[in-house]
C-alpha cells in the first residue's frame, strides 16, 4: 500500500474510532487544514478513514447575555445582597431596579429564598453555573449541559453550521514509516533505505518528452550504401563540385552541341581552366572522327574553349572517369556518393542539387553480363530481392540498361541506370579493359526508404520531422 507522508502523519496522531473536526486534527498533527483534508480523502479511498459532514449549533451571547456577564446575573446580585442580611422587599427593589422581579422569581423557583413579613430571607447557599456557561460561550469553548434555560431567557442564541469530521477506521498492521520518494545520498549512506519502502509511481503516466540527438535519416541510407560498396571491395573516391566541361562532358563523349550541355540545364561558371594536354588531343579526335576507337565520331567541330569552361558538375561520372584516367590499369573498383547540380526549378521531385551514387568496375574479362550480375547483387544487398533489366540509353555507355526493382505496393520501380563505358570514352583516356558503370539518384532511394513524397525535406530540414522519425525505419 502506498501512503504519502501526510497520510502517515494523520494515522500516527489520530485515535482510531474517534471523530475529529478538521481544525482539531490540524491542531493535533501540525498539518495544514488543506493537507488534513487531502490526506483524509486519500485514506478514505483506501478504506482507512471516514469523512462525515455534520450540522452543528454555534452558540453566541445575546446583548442581554453580554450585559449579564459583565454586570452579573440579577439573581446573583440579589443573592449577594441577602448573604449579609435579610432584606426588605422595598429596599431590594431600590437596589435591583427592574431586574428585581427576575431575580426574586429565579431565587424563589429554585427554593433559595423565602418571603415573610415583607422580608426576603435566604434559606440555603447556592451556586450560579449560568455565569460559567456564558463565559465559555463567550470564549467559543465547548459547553456541556443543558442550555435550554439560557435560550429561554434569551441570554444566548445560535447559528446552524456545517462541520467536517474525520474518523480513522483502522490503521495498517505494519509499523508506519515514511516511504522514500527521492533516494538521497543520506538514505544510502546511513543505510536507512533498508527500513523504508519506496514510494511507487504510476508507470502508465508519460513523462516529459525529450529528443534524441541523432544522425540524419538520409545519412543513414548513404551509410548503408557506402557499406555495401565497401563490403564488395570498392574504393571510395571524392571529387570537387566545380569541374571543367572537359571532364564533365567531353571526356564522356558528349557532343558539344548536346542539349544536356545547354545553359538551360547546367550551371556554368564564368571561368575557364587549363586542361591536361595528354588527354585533350585524343578526346578531340574521337569527337571529330572517332580517332582509333572504331567509331565514326560526331563530326562537326570541337572547341577546346568550350571544354575549358567550368561547370557545377552535373553527375558524379565526371569524377569516376577522371579517377579511371588516373588509374587506367585493371583491376579497379571505385565508388562515389556525392552532390551533383542541375539547373532546375525546385519542386517536390526536382532539386537544383542532389546526391548521386555511382560505382565502376574496370577489368579485362568483364562484360555486360557481369554488369547485370553486379547490379543484381548490389540491389539484393540493398534489400530489393527482385530485379529486372530493360534496355536504356546513356550517351557514354553501350550497351545501356535501366534496372527496375520490385517494391511492395508500388510494383516495378526504375532505379538508376547502368552500362558499359563506350570505347570512345575509355580508349582516348588510356583506360585498359572495359568499364562497367552504374548509378542512381539517392533522392529516389530516400523516397522509397523513408516514404517521402517531397524531396525538399532532405535539404530544408524540418526539425519536428527529424525528431519524430524513428532511427529505425521499417
Amino acid at each position, binding site marked *: 500500500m502506498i501512503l504519502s507522508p501526510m497520510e502517515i502523519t494523520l494515522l500516527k496522531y489520530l485515535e482510531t474510532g474517534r471523530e475529529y473536526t478538521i481544525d482539531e486534527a490540524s491542531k493535533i498533527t501540525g498539518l495544514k487544514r488543506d493537507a488534513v483534508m487531502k490526506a483524509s480523502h486519500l485514506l478514505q479511498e483506501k478504506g482507512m478513514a471516514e469523512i462525515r459532514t455534520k450540522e452543528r449549533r454555534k452558540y453566541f451571547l445575546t446583548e442581554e447575555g453580554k450585559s449579564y456577564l459583565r454586570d452579573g446575573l440579577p439573581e446573583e446580585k440579589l443573592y449577594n445582597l441577602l448573604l449579609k442580611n435579610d432584606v426588605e422587599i422595598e429596599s431590594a427593589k431600590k437596589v435591583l431596579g427592574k431586574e428585581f422581579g427576575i431575580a426574586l422569581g429565579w431565587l424563589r423557583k429554585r427554593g433559595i429564598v423565602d418571603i415573610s413579613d415583607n422580608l426576603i430571607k435566604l434559606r440555603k447557599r447556592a451556586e450560579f453555573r449560568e455565569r460559567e456557561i456564558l463565559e465559555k460561550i463567550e470564549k467559543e469553548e465547548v459547553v456541556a449541559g443543558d442550555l435550554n434555560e439560557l435560550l429561554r431567557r434569551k441570554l444566548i442564541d445560535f447559528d446552524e453550521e456545517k462541520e467536517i469530521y474525520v474518523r480513522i477506521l483502522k490503521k495498517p498492521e505494519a509499523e508506519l514509516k515514511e516511504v522514500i520518494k527521492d533516494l538521497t545520498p543520506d538514505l544510502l549512506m546511513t543505510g536507512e533505505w533498508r527500513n523504508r519502502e519506496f514510494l511507487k509511481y504510476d508507470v502508465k503516466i508519460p513523462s516529459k518528452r525529450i529528443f534524441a*540527438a*541523432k544522425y*540524419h535519416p538520409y*545519412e543513414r541510407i548513404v551509410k548503408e550504401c*557506402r557499406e555495401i*560498396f*565497401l563490403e*564488395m*571491395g*570498392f*574504393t*571510395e*573516391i*571524392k*571529387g*570537387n*563540385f*566545380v569541374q571543367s566541361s572537359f571532364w564533365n562532358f567531353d571526356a564522356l563523349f558528349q557532343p558539344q*552541341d548536346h542539349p544536356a550541355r545547354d545553359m538551360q540545364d547546367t*550551371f556554368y*561558371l*564564368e*571561368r575557364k581552366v587549363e586542361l591536361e594536354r595528354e588527354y585533350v588531343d585524343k578526346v578531340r579526335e574521337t569527337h571529330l572522327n572517332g580517332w582509333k576507337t572504331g*567509331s*565514326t*565520331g560526331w*563530326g562537326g567541330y570541337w572547341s577546346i574553349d568550350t571544354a575549358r569552361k567550368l561547370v557545377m558538375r552535373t553527375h558524379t561520372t565526371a*569524377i569516376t572517369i577522371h*579517377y579511371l584516367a588516373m588509374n587506367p590499369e585493371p*583491376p579497379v573498383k571505385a565508388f562515389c556518393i556525392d*552532390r551533383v*547540380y542541375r539547373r532546375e*526549378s525546385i519542386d517536390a521531385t526536382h532539386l537544383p*542539387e542532389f546526391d548521386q551514387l555511382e560505382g565502376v*568496375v574496370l*577489368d579485362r574479362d568483364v*562484360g*555486360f*553480363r*557481369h554488369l547485370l*550480375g*553486379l547490379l543484381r547483387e548490389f540491389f539484393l544487398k540493398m534489400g530489393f530481392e527482385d530485379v*529486372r533489366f*530493360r*534496355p*536504356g540509353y546513356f550517351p557514354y555507355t*553501350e*550497351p545501356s540498361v535501366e534496372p527496375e526493382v520490385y517494391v511492395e505496393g508500388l510494383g516495378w520501380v526504375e532505379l538508376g541506370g547502368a552500362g*558499359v563505358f*563506350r570505347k570512345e570514352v575509355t580508349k582516348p583516356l588510356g583506360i585498359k579493359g*572495359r568499364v562497367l558503370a552504374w548509378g542512381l539518384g539517392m533522392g529516389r532511394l530516400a523516397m522509397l526508404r523513408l516514404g517521402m513524397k517531397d524531396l525538399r525535406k*532532405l*535539404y*530544408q*530540414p*524540418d*526539425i*519536428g520531422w*527529424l*525528431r519524430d522519425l524513428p532511427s529505425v525505419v521499417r
Partner: protein
Amino acid sequence: MPVITLYWDELERMVEADREEILEKLPLLGCDIERVEEEHIDVEFFPNRPDLYSVEGVARALRGFLDLEPGLRKYSVVKGDWKIVVDGSVLDVRPRIVGCVVRKLEMDDEVIRSLMQIQEDLHWTIGRNRRKMAIGVHDLSKVHFPLSYRAVKSDFSFVPLDFDEEMTVAEILEKHPKGVGYRFILENKDLYPMIVDSKEEVISFPPIINAEKTRVTEKTTDLFIDVTGFDENVDRALNIIASMFHDRGGEIQSISIVYPDRVEVTPDLNPRIMEVKQDEIRELLGFRIKVNEAVRALERMRFGAEKLENTIRVHIPAYRADIMHPWDIIEDIAIGYGYDKIELEYPSTNTIGSVHRWNKVRDIVREIMVGLGFLEVTSFTLTSEKLQYEYMNRSAMAWKDYVPLQHPLTEEHTIVRTHILPSLLEILSMNRHHTLPQKIFEAGDVVVNSKNRLKLAGVITHSKAGFSEIRSIVQALMMELGIEWEAEESQDRAYITGRSAEIVVEESVGNFGEIHPEVLERFQLSTPVAGFEIDLSSLFDVGEVI
C-alpha cells in the same frame, strides 16, 4: 526525350499483333511507357532512336522484334527528274540541303498526324530546335522545279504560311509567330537562306517558315520534302521521313542537288555495311553467344546480317541514325537476344575496398557531435551572397572566396556556400515553431576558391544559450579530436564582440561565440543563438580530391 502518342487501331493494324503482346514487348525494345489509354499509348523513346518517333517506325521495329518480319526491309528510291541548284551565297549561311519527292500516297488524317508528330520531334532532337536541321513539307503540285537554294537580304519578301500578304524577311522575323520563335537561329546574319522555284516564287524560308502557296491540304497527293542544315543530320532526318512514307506505300523519288563543285542525289536509302568481330561481341557481352543466334538477334532488330568467318557483316538500315561504332550494334544484339535471357554473373574482379579519408574525418566529427547532443541536419550548398555574407555581417570576394553561378535560376541560389553556419541559422529560422532547446549541426562540403573543403558547424538556441555553453562544446570537440588549441578574441561581426573567439591552431581554423543580435534579426530569430564553425580540411589530411 520525346513522348510519342501511338493510336492502338493504327499500331495493332500495322504490327499485326494485339495490344497485350505489344505492351509486354515494347519496353524490352527500349522505351518507357508513360501512359496506357483505351485509344492510345504514350511512349517515351530514347534520343538515339529518332526512327521510332512515328507509328510507322515503331510498327517496323516491333514486327522484327516479334519475329513477324525479321531482317532488313527493302527500301527503293525511284530516280526522279527533280533538281535543286545550290547557290554559292548560301554556303556560309546554311550550307546543306537534301530532299525527296513522295508520290502515290493517300494523305489521310493518319498520315498527316504522323508526319506532324515526327517533324516536330525530329526538329527538337536531331535538329536541336531547328538549329542544326529543319524540315519543310510541300504540296508538290504547287512547286515548279528546278529550285534554287540561295541567300537573300532582309528586304526580300514573299507570302509566308498562315498570312495572305507579302512580308519581308525582316518583317517575318519581327512579326510572324514562327519568325519570333526561331529568329535566334539567324541572329547576327545579314543574309538569309531561301528556296525559290523556277517561277521565282518562294517555297520556303528555312529554318523559319514555308510559303503559303505550297501548303499541304487534304487534296494533296504528292509531296516535296526539303531538309536544310549543316551536316549529316539532314540526311539522317530525310532518311527517317522517306522510310516512313515508304512504309505507308508511297513512292520515293530522288532529287539531284547541284552544288557549285559537285552533285549529290538524295535520299540514299541503301543500307550501310559494318563488320563486327565475333570476339568483340563475346568480350563486350561477357558471354559466348552462338553466331547464328547473334544473326537472329540482329534480324529481330531489323538489321541485315551475314555470318562470315570471324565477323558478322551487318547491313544497317538508312533510317538508323545512331550506329557510330560496332558496340552500338552489339547492344542491339543484346536487346534482340533479350536482356531477360542473359545469365547473370558477378564479376570476379578482386580488389580491396577502402574508405576515403574525407569521409573518415567527417564520420568521426559526426559521431562526436551526436555524442554532444546535436541533431544532424543536411542543407543545400547553393545559396546567395545575401545569406552567406550580408546577413552575417561578413564580406567575401567572388572567385577568391566563393564561386558565383553564371546564370542562376533564382535569387536564393546564386553562389556555392563557403560557410555552413548561415545554412544552420536558416534552418533554425525555418523551425522556430518547434520546441526549444534546439541543437543542430552539419558536417559537409563548402567550396572555397573553386575547391571543396570539409567544414563542421553547430548551433544551439534556447533562452539562455550563450558563450560559455558553446565554448564547452568547442572544448569537448577539440579534446575529442586530440587537437591543442587556443582561443583568441574574434573580430568576426557575425558574433557579439567580446563574446566570440577564433579557434587558433597555429592559425585560425574556425570560430565560435554568441551570434550577433543584428544577425539574429535578419534571420528572424528571437531566442539567443550560440554557434561555431571549423574548417576540418586545415586540421586533417582529408585525402585526394579529384
